[in-house]
């Protein structure tokens, strides 16, 4: 696309991003807000695509719109169940469906500081953007050193070699988030399987879909990781696809979620960060923490990415499932009585 068509497309896209962002924070119905948030994520992914940042576009579509959307829908469903529990006796099962959760208007005392805080952050970000010198940033140095990184995709080179430190911390942050979610479990539920019991019928469409899609999903996930060395792709994008496949299989009732105390699932969860850390420490012994010797960098990066993919996929899927809970306990239930 060039000329007027491209400018027009970009203007419409920018307007759609602003409109969906505004709707996502202004609608009262929480489910509608989540839907607008997902649509907003898709438009933002398109915007990254228009800017030529395909790696970021993939991540935004898979993580920002897809997985975060599922997480938020789960949160809204839990809120709805909590509302039902607080209802007086006798309002019955119908109440669950009759009352979608709605965000109540906050008091001015809560609203004004929040508005000021958001406006302040926007102002600082805008100032930081405008104060940037109009150069190419680190593009030049990255291109100059790409040959010694072991990969030909500059994004992967930065993520796993030049700035491996950031990626290592990101993978640990994911693990910390999952630990936080699991910490919400009630004592008596610890050791059970995470998430709600799935109600998929054995011969239903979801079960069929759950059998049909995984081969393609697995292929795509592994492909995204493998191709990340030379073209857009990588552990986060591939891991998200694998997480989605695993979630689908569990939601279709074809596979039970693992118990949170299972040593095997815990090994998978920490494998990536641990491998990354071990390679970093090996680098430290040889001179620099996280430095990869150019001769073997390609294979070391592939090794780290494989480990990270597994851990990211498992962590994301378990984040969506939520804390362990007994099938009898409604989701999000917190005991009011001792």
């Amino acid at each position, binding site marked *: 696309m060039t000329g007027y068509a491209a400018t027009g497309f970009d203007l419409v896209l920018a307007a759609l991003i602003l409109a969906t962002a505004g709707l996502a924070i202004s609608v009262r119905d929480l489910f509608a807000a989540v839907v607008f948030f997902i649509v907003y994520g898709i438009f933002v992914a398109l915007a990254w695509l228009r800017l030529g940042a395909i790696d970021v576009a993939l991540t935004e579509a898979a993580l920002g719109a897809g997985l975060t959307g599922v997480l938020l829908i789960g949160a809204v469903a839990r809120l709805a169940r909590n509302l039902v529990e607080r209802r007086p006796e006798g309002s019955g099962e119908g109440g669950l469906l009759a*009352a979608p959760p709605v965000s109540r208007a906050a008091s001015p005392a809560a609203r004004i500081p929040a508005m000021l805080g958001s406006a302040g952050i926007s102002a600082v970000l805008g100032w930081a953007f405008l104060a940037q010198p109009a150069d190419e940033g680190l593009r030049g140095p990255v291109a100059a050193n790409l040959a010694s990184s072991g990969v030909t995709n500059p994004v992967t080179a930065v993520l796993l070699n030049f700035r491996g430190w950031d990626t290592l911390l990101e993978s640990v942050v994911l693990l910390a988030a999952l630990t936080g979610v699991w910490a919400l479990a009630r004592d008596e539920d610890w050791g059970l399987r995470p998430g709600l019991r799935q109600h998929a019928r054995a011969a239903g*469409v979801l079960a069929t879909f759950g059998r049909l899609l995984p081969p393609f999903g697995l292929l795509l996930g592994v492909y995204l990781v493998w191709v990340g060395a030379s073209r857009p792709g990588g552990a986060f994008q591939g891991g998200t696809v694998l997480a989605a496949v695993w979630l689908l299989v569990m939601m279709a009732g074809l596979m039970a979620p693992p118990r949170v105390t299972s040593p095997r699932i815990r090994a998978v969860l920490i494998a990536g960060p641990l491998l990354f850390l071990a390679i970093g420490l090996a680098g430290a012994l040889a001179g620099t923490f996280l430095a990869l010797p150019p001769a073997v960098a390609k294979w070391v990066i592939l090794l780290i990415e494989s480990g990270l993919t597994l851990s990211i996929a498992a962590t994301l899927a378990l984040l969506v499932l939520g804390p362990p809970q007994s099938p009898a306990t409604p989701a999000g239930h917190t005991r009011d009585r001792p």
Partner: protein
Amino acid sequence: MLADAMTVGFTATGLLFFLAGTAGIIRFPDTLSRLHALTKADNVGLGLLIAGLAFQAPDWQSLGKLALIWVMALIAAGTTAQLVARSAAVRQSRRTPPEAAPQGGREAP
């Protein structure tokens, strides 16, 4: 030249289907009819878009990927529609129990 004309023809028809589907989602009265508008129009619309783009594909691999996208979207849309329809049916039957709740009204908390 002919390929370009085919592309324009197919994609324009596809866009018409999307337009009709969107109108259906907004105008149709209940979940099942809206689902009908969504899936039927979107599947055919996407199929026509892909058929139009196929005339621009540089090689067989791209053609295969385009076809795969359509098949995947078809399966996913069909499955989702079934699930949404089932959930709507369950909701409907719960809302109108034998002792007859007020039609379409929401229960007061």
